[in-house]
């Protein structure tokens, strides 16, 4: 019954965090639309938060700091989503597209 006590192990959470992070990076480099990239960035932030919380629970002396840091990551992610999406709306109004490859006006 080794697999059922996985939740008491630091490495489990670190590997899940790494998996979320790499899935986010994969989505970030393969997505063609800006909103898809934003979704992938949220995955990256979730992976980082899981890492903070795992170290906070298992190794850190003060189990408050990681929670507070994760709370601030959430606030920053909310601000990032709001600003990013308003930029997407503004881009869509000007270009009638949210495809990242269409934004090449400065290319000449």
């Amino acid at each position: 019954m080794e697999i059922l006590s996985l939740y008491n192990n630091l490495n489990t959470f670190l590997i899940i965090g790494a998996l979320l992070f790499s899935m986010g990076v994969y989505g970030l480099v393969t997505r063609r639309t800006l909103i898809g990239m934003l979704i992938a960035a949220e995955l990256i932030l979730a992976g980082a938060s899981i890492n903070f919380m795992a170290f906070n629970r298992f190794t850190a002396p003060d189990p408050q700091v990681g929670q507070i840091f994760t709370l601030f990551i959430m606030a920053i992610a909310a601000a990032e989503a709001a600003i990013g999406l308003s930029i997407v709306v503004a881009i869509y109004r000007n270009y009638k597209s949210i495809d990242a490859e269409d934004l090449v006006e400065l290319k000449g």
Partner: protein
Amino acid sequence: MNVPLPNADHLVGIVFLIMIGLTITGGVIACNANRLVRAVAGLVVCFVGVAGLYYFLNSPFIAMMQMLIYVGAVAVTISFAIMFAAPEESKKHGPPGTLAGPFGLITAGLLFGGFTLLALKTDWQVHAKINDGSVETMGKLLLTEYAMVFELISIVLLTAIIGALIIARRGRSS
């Protein structure tokens, strides 16, 4: 070998496995779905799983905040943006970027392998806890030791809201 009857510990382990499954399934859907609406749905599933993981990490308050902020606010905001600005997804024209396809997969795989090796090979030092991780202590810390950071994050959020409104309004033909 006699199989022990399922008890509370096994139930906890099974719930944890379900949470891992939700997280990974949601993440895969979020970065692979063809339509953006499905990607957002996958993101919601992934965040519910992450909230469950936070609960297993002794932080029910952070789990609740995860549900409130991510599932309740961020996902809804992204859905609004999709309804505003994504008329038709997957009009695949032109060649994909150089990093799309196998190169992206290799990049992600290398990152995952590197982080996993780093996690497994390092000898993490465990320190004794100096307080419990309760919500009460966290509230006190937020108003004493981290009061400056707390105020700064409030200002950042306020600026972000106003800036988002201004950016989204500008250029509107009125």
